């Protein structure tokens, strides 16, 4: 039986991070993954990540995947693909299916980083072809280059539902509705806003009555639900669709840990059955660690930190580093993880209704109900200011741990301060040079450069545009409001794309000046 210092199950963000950290400290490390490609969900994530510089903020997910693989390779981590771990036995014996045979390995330490699986909901017709998980849609689009459908209804307004809706639109699908049984949008407001402004209607407090079709999905009916999630008669709405995407949460894939005899707990806040573990991933079994979603559903940035923690803890367990070294390294990671777990969407705030920002500003209810900040709510946020000439308008209205914008502006126009969840403010007296770095650098696509009065009755709005191909200069069309409805005529006056923008094109449109604060998207007609 082959023995490794460390066996890691799962080559996603946490597993790879754990492997890199451990191998750097001298552990002979192998990572098994059942998929043919490593990276877990990272290679499906084409959007820019939130966070701070040290969390690789504003880097697109698939690039983070590439970076992790390179680092793993450099550190000497052996990544074995198409290798399904089918069992974890006592004394850390790992049973792997590879090719047509079963292999046994022993790990002096084991890290389980198996991630999570998508939840499903049932409704009449839910077994029809065309009802798919949002993750499946992402796999089809971003890994295999296959369009999941033409007209799609998305169920679920968490970050997965919002991000995948946007990606479906980028692929050329029409998202006819974004539906959630909850009364409020669950994901980041900025993700919702970028979907809403393309014209996707949000139906909160609604869910699917039934999917129609005999051989495949041809339509869907939704209806409003009351507080007890019962349908309200007469509120039915019908859509012709060929695809229904479900983004209704994730469940940790923790079966290997249960099988091995780890103490488990069913914690709805963590997404289901998870191992009991300390903050650094130590389970009840000495030498068995967990990292990432399998220990509780969060997101990739925290999974990477948890992975590094587990790798360090395993290195100390096996004597590759001393206790002092471990503790000082873990302390800095604790701080980083704590930073990510702040703000309105922090794990401890799950399920809570937050009505005010940390600054004491009322939260936009329209954003929670319809996916966009209403015109009359916008002015109360510190990123929204007015002055002559081009200046940034930052429509970032919720406390989330993210701050690339303040580094993006070399002129110091934007400040978040030391607290990473604070709302960005436009620094008074600062001079905007219209470089566009803030627009491209905002992972939430929430920054616009506006010249409210060009002197000829028009205004210009520069917006982030991640659709291909971008319209050409001179294209005439409509300026769309935050709700995605046409509000005015618009003409494209500039299209900027630079390497530093990392594939976000900057579109500048000219609109009548009374629409300077209203037009936030462009549609050619």
């Amino acid at each position, binding site marked *: *039986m*082959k023995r490794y210092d460390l066996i890691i199950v799962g080559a996603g963000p946490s597993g790879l991070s754990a492997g890199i950290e451990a191998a750097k400290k001298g552990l002979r490390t192998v990572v098994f993954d*059942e998929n043919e490609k490593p990276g877990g969900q990272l290679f499906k994530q084409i959007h820019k990540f939130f966070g701070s510089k040290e969390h690789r903020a504003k880097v697109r997910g698939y690039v983070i995947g590439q970076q992790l693989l390179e680092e793993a390779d450099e550190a000497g981590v*052996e990544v*074995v693909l198409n290798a*399904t*771990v*089918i*069992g974890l*036995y006592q004394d850390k014996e790992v*049973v792997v*299916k590879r090719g*047509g*045979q*079963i*292999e*046994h*390995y022993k790990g002096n330490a084991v890290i389980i980083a198996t991630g999570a*699986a998508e*939840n*499903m909901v*049932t*409704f*009449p017709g*839910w*077994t029809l072809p065309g009802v798919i998980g949002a993750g499946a849609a992402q796999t089809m689009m971003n890994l295999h280059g296959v369009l999941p459908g033409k007209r799609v209804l998305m169920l679920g307004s968490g970050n997965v539902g919002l991000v995948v809706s946007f990606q479906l639109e980028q692929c050329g699908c029409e998202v006819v509705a974004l539906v959630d049984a909850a009364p409020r949008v669950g994901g980041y407001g900025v993700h919702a806003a970028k979907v809403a402004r393309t014209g996707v209607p949000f139906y909160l407090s609604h869910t699917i009555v039934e999917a129609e079709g005999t051989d495949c999905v041809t339509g869907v009916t939704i209806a409003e639900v009351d507080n007890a999630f019962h349908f309200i008669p007469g509120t039915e709405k019908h859509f012709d669709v060929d695809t229904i995407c479900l983004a209704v949460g994730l*469940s940790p894939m923790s*079966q*290997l840990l*249960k*099988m091995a005899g780890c103490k*488990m707990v*069913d*914690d*709805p806040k963590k997404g*289901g*059955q998870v191992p009991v573990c300390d903050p650094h991933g130590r389970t009840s079994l000495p030498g068995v660690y967990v990292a990432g979603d399998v220990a509780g559903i969060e997101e990739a940035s925290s999974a990477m930190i948890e992975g590094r923690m587990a790798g360090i803890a395993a290195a100390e367990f096996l004597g590759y580093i001393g206790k002092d070294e471990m503790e000082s390294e873990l302390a800095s990671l604790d701080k980083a993880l704590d930073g990510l777990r702040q703000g309105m969407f922090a794990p401890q705030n799950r399920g809570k209704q937050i009505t005010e920002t940390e600054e004491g500003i009322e939260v936009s209810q329209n954003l929670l109900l319809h996916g966009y900040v209403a015109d009359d709510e916008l002015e109360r946020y510190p990123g929204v200011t007015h002055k002559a000439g081009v200046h940034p308008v930052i429509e970032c209205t919720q406390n989330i741990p993210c701050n690339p914008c303040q580094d993006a502006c070399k002129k110091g126009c934007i400040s978040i301060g030391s607290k990473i969840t604070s709302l960005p403010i436009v620094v008074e007296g600062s001079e905007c040079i219209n470089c566009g770095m803030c627009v491209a650098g905002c992972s939430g696509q929430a920054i616009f450069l506006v010249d409210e009065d060009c002197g000829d009755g028009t205004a210009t709005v520069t917006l982030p545009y991640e659709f291909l191909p971008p319209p050409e200069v001179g294209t005439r069309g409509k300026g769309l409001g935050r709700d995605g409805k046409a509000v005015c005529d618009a003409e494209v006056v500039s299209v900027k794309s630079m390497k530093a923008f990392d594939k976000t094109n900057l579109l500048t449109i000219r609109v009548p000046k009374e629409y300077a604060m209203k037009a936030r998207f462009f549609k050619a007609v």
Partner: protein
Amino acid sequence: MNSVNDRSRDIGPFLPGPDDDMIICRCEEITKGEIRQAVHDGMWTLTEIRRYLRTGMGLCQGQTCGRLVKGIVARELGISPAELEPATSRVPMRPIEMEVFANEVPEEKEVGSYED
């Protein structure tokens, strides 16, 4: 005492529901009505339900329906899903052909020609 194990508890009669014919476990084609009926037949744990109906025993190994079945059983028993003992986890974690499952690399041979 855990209320799931207190089998003297009265959970009331089986009441037919409008969505009883909805398939929950797709692999084994088990309906919601069958699962609810099984609870009234005395199957109060997921292990019992699994042996009685074969829910979660098919190709996906309960990846899709595990949570759904748990919710239905819990509702029928009038408890929270978190109170219900999860089903046993067993090797193999993923469906696997018997031919492969039985094809163990012999102990004396060093596995993993991919490395050396």
